[in-house]
């Protein structure tokens, strides 16, 4: 076997090993997960993790972003528990009728303490954007 082939094989082996090693690490948060922590921790509860994938299976974007008026920018919506209990924002569905009610605090306030508000998740794009 020529030296060139040996090097090429070694290179290929390294690439395959690297690919498997990378694949063995679980991805970070799911793409488009949003953490809301403007007030949560100050009020003594865990930050909220809002998963777009979970909601998207059940509702089209337009339900929250058109009918309910959620602005499409992380941090642009001032969500207060009082409003949710009044049936606004998340409370439109989280009312023990369409989805679990606002009394099930832990189900939404399930985030890791110390997280900053914003969009999280792997599988790109985490560019310079202001999401």
């Amino acid at each position: 076997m020529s030296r060139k082939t040996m090097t090429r094989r070694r290179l290929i082996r390294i690439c395959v090993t690297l690919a498997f090693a990378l694949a063995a690490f679980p991805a970070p948060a799911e793409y488009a997960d949003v953490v809301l922590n403007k007030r949560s921790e100050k009020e003594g509860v865990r930050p909220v993790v809002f998963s777009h994938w979970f909601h998207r299976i059940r509702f089209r974007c337009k339900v929250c972003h058109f009918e309910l008026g959620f602005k499409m920018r992380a941090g642009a919506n001032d969500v207060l528990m009082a409003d949710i209990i009044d049936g606004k924002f998340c409370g439109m569905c989280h009312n023990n009728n369409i989805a679990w009610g606002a009394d099930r605090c832990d189900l939404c306030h399930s985030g890791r303490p110390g997280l900053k508000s914003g969009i999280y998740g792997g599988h790109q794009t985490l560019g310079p954007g202001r999401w």
Partner: protein
Amino acid sequence: MLSRALRLIAMLLLIADAVLAAEVVRRWAPLAQDGVHDPKSPALKLLQEPREALSALPPVAGGNQVDWVQAIEQGRINPRTNIFPETRVRLLESDVLLNLRGSTPIVRFPHRPHTLWLDCGNCHEHLFKSRAGANKLSMDAMLQGEQCGVCHGAVSFPLTECNRCHSVPRAKPAQGKAR
């Protein structure tokens, strides 16, 4: 002999690549290890795991590794379109070609998949004017989270998936020209 060995390696690599693309790369972190959920939260016993929901949906690279438009088109999911009974659910089928004079492939913007998910009012008129040619689009703005980048790059497929928008090849003569 040598070329046969190389061809074999190339074939094995292709197979490995296909396996990686089909199986190994489609991985979803368990909620307890995803870095945003508190592993001590009692919710983790009750919340749905991404793998359980997403592994059954049509695969694609990037984002949640799910082709969300195909998921609806194939009837795999049928998310609710409205909460208020009086809301008009609007669907538009027309395509718009963009970037006609650029150097990258032409962009075909399809209204159908967008209106399957969104209402006209989510983009018009504050993000995009409805008149063709009236919008000055820029990748730079999109990368900053403006224009298409309000969603693409944050919640819908990421901006690294160039060919999914830049999908129409330009006519041959334009290629091969000296720069």
